[in-house]
């Protein structure tokens, strides 16, 4: 498919002042979804997200129309998101796709936690993340697109199943499954909308304005609000700044206060540990695609060696418990 040509034809339907599109180029990353940046000839900077031809959604991933609907709902609830310009129709010739405004900022965690350019916004960022998550968690769920519901025990069982399927023998992961099973909190009384992948990499940070966009709603579901807070605190997204548990830039107290003080630190740290365990299993699964011959790239092989980073984090959490 010629995406650039399809975008050029679509341009007049994206903005009344536009007659064409230019500078279309695919951004790196995203194996299950393509992301393209392009500009309309009236100067509007846009992003296209589309499912590659013939690709099937991952079992837990949302259809793109649902993702777009959630972004619109989050935006209406006061959470920062890119604004959705168009959910593509079959006649648009782009397959399953939507178009949104392009935000100017940084998603790379390494820069956000270290670069001088972000020094002014870092101190307020953990609290802001808590506030934004509170808005997301307050979005009314009746009328939302169909979403799966999950809880702590369900997630543990799902990831243990994936781990067993691989036949891997990692004692630390074995221990972590049993430990987390023994302390898993009951489901919340009322499941809320959970973003599902709220972390460095999916947050657009502006050097002066801070968090200006929550991206990548593909894994949104209904569940425990503490899941989003805990995922944000997984050490793998701190980029070396391990003393700052919230994304490498902030403290638990600020995150919890930003959310409204309604969630216990203990519950967040449970989900943080489960997050490390999930990421460890995901690293092994990506290595499996190398071992099975599906993707023989050095990148796929090396991700398997990141499993041990989750193991050392899990040992630290088990020792502290």
């Amino acid at each position, binding site marked *: 498919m010629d995406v650039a040509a399809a975008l050029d034809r679509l341009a007049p339907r994206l903005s009344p002042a536009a007659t064409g599109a230019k500078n279309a180029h695919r951004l*790196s990353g995203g194996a299950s979804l393509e992301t393209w940046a392009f500009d309309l000839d009236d100067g509007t900077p846009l992003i296209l997200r589309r499912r590659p031809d013939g690709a099937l959604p991952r079992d837990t991933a949302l259809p793109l129309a649902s993702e777009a609907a959630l972004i619109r709902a989050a935006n209406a609830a006061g959470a920062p998101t890119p604004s959705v310009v168009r959910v593509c129709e079959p006649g648009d010739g782009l397959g399953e796709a939507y178009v949104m405004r392009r935000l100017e900022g940084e998603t790379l965690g390494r820069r956000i936690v270290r670069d001088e350019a972000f020094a002014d916004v870092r101190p307020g960022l953990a609290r802001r993340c808590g506030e934004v998550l509170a808005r997301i968690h307050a979005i009314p769920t009746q009328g939302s697109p169909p979403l799966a519901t999950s809880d702590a025990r369900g997630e543990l069982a799902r990831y243990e199943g994936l781990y067993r399927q691989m036949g*891997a*023998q*990692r*004692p*630390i992961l*074995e*221990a*972590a*499954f*049993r*430990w987390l099973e023994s302390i898993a909190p009951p489901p919340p009384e009322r499941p809320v909308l959970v973003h599902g992948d709220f972390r460095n990499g999916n947050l657009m940070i502006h050097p002066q304005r801070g968090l200006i966009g929550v991206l990548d709603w593909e894994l949104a579901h209904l569940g425990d609000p503490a899941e989003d807070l805990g995922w944000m605190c997984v*050490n793998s997204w*701190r980029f*070396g*700044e*391990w*003393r700052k548990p919230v994304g490498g830039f902030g403290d638990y107290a600020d995150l919890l206060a930003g959310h409204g003080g309604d969630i216990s630190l203990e519950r967040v740290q449970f989900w943080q540990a489960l997050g490390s365990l999930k990421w460890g299993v995901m690293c*092994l699964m990506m*290595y499996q695609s*190398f*071992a099975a011959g599906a993707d*023989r*790239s*050095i*990148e796929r*092989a*090396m991700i*398997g*060696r*990141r*499993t*041990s*980073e989750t*193991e*050392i*984090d*899990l*040992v*630290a959490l*088990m*020792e*502290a*418990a």
Partner: protein
Amino acid sequence: MISHPTAAELSEAIATFDAQPAASGDARHAFLARVADNARATVAREVELGARLEAEAIDRLRALLAQDGGLAALNAALCEALRRGEVSPRDPAVLAHLRATAIGQIRIDQPTYGGLEALLAGD
């Protein structure tokens, strides 16, 4: 050491990458070249540290499980005992073994990972 991928698999993936023609200015190729360099460093650390760490792990596992065997068999036995609940993840002796294993593996895989410093800071 037990690892996914093994050093042999890493070496094979490095050789495959090195055999590919380099397109100049190709951002993807430049990224993979950095990953390949990291993989070479990982393999070198494994050559240097792997045998000693494996011998230490075997000694710990023999004491912990009160049985003999090679690393793969002992490791599998510990996994099985944890899965069945025959040993507890809260058992200090088990936790001490897991801690030593994690430190050994991260020293091969990612010696600069912040989690190593964090764990040692807890001492």
